[in-house]
């Protein structure tokens, strides 16, 4: 079973939640949402998910709990959550921007705002989903640090004290249409974890605006199993996932 790019991405997103246990999975985007549901229906049955409003819904669609926004914030602060957010920009240490492009005082493009990214990244596990891997997204320096990465490089900021004062973020993976990346390097610089079927490491490097760490052996991202493939098609019979990737 090979699967389309979208299918491989769904599986890669699902893998982000493997081993998380009974925590709130908060996917942002069509493919991350399919990934979280695939994970819950297979290897991560304990995950909790909301209906996008205020209810926790199990895989049968049954309400199993109530989670209004104030309770979501409490789950965030309690660390019982793993979110997969988007990123308009992300740098080599995982600093992420969803707020605006250009000078913050008068942005060239106003985007979402910081939303919950600062709180998410200092409280619980965070992964990222980038449907179009490009140099516009993977940049040397982000214009506004929303999600906090492992280092600020030279541009320190108040409240960003040395490691003795502040616990490191827990950034898991960055899933893109080309590859899966992580931060499992001595200085937490971004690394190529796997490339999707048909993608060369060189393609990933070409589309990245900073130097990625490349291990000697870069595996190919795993394709969905036959059972996973069927499940993905059942979860997304209209194929909306294909529209999220180029």
């Amino acid at each position, binding site marked *: 079973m090979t699967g389309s790019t979208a299918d491989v991405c769904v599986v890669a997103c699902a893998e982000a939640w493997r081993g998380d246990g009974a925590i709130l999975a908060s996917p942002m985007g069509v493919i991350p949402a399919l990934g979280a549901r695939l994970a819950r229906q297979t290897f991560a049955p304990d995950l909790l998910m909301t209906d996008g409003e205020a209810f926790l819904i199990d895989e049968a669609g049954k309400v199993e709990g109530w989670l209004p926004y104030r309770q979501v914030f409490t789950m965030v602060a309690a660390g019982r959550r793993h979110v997969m957010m988007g990123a308009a920009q992300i740098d080599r240490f995982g600093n992420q921007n969803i707020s605006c492009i250009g000078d913050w005082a008068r942005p060239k493009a106003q985007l979402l*705002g910081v939303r919950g990214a600062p709180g998410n990244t200092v409280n619980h596990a965070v992964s990222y989903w980038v449907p179009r891997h490009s140099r516009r997204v993977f940049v040397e320096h982000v214009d506004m640090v929303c999600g906090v990465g492992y280092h600020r490089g030279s541009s320190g900021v108040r409240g960003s004290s040395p490691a003795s004062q*502040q616990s490191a973020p827990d950034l898991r993976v960055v899933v893109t249409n080309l590859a899966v990346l992580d931060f499992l390097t001595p200085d937490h610089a971004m690394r190529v974890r796997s490339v999707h079927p048909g993608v060369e490491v060189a393609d990933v490097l070409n589309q990245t605006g900073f130097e990625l760490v490349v291990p000697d052996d870069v595996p190919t991202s795993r394709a969905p199993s036959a059972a996973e493939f069927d499940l993905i098609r059942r979860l997304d019979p209209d194929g909306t996932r294909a529209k999220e990737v180029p």
Partner: protein
Amino acid sequence: MLSGRVLTPDEVVRELSDGMTIGIGGWGSRRKPMALVRAILRSPLRDLTVVSYAGPDVGLLIASGQARRIVTGFASLDSIALEPHFRNGRQRGTVELTELDEGMLHWGLLAAAHRLPFLPIRAGLGSDVMRVNPELRTVRSPYPDTGHPGGEDLVAMPALRLDAALVHMNRADAVGNGQYLGPDPYFDDLFCLAAERAYVSCEEIVPALTGPPPSLLLNRAMVHAVTETPNGAHFTSCVPDYGRDEEFQRRYAKAAADPDDWRRFRAEYLDGDEASYQKAVRR
């Protein structure tokens, strides 16, 4: 609430004044006190600071030039990711912004509601929220713990004190108790407690509130006046009374993209009173 404080939306707005900091309840394009916002649009109020989990409430007050500063973590129409007037205002430099993490906003309201000067929170540490809000301070915990023998550094989120709060409920009674019947209270009780004066619009003023006890969100000690505004959250959602008017919201967002379209939209829907708005959106 003192008895006899059932007002019209215009009477509520006459109790507000220029330069006030006004908190608006709801979330994004959900259960917003839009009839009260529309009443502000018809008033000469100006130089407002608006604290909100922002949606079209904030967008309209930016478009009208009445909001000088927005305090928020986002401005969204939910089913349309970006609030178009907020985006325009930011890109044209016509509105100031205090950009906070969503959880920081909650904490600032909670601090104000509890009459505390600040509450400690981790959100914001290490992010550019600290850079773009140079007035924010950190505080060191006086209690050592294993991870932080010298005490943990935290953001001291200042209280977001409000001069007035505007929230929309499904039901209220004539003495100021308020009930939401949808899935989420959002932060409407905190907006009310954080404010000097809290104004509650509602779908219907009823003689007695019935329904699940947890739906009785606001009591009359939190509330200064009530106003009945049927369909008053339109075009945002007010479930179970009605959902978001997605078609109208699309028209709003499309009009916001072009100054001429927006002038026409204003003339058609916003320049008249609430009754003419309600008539126009039913056409």
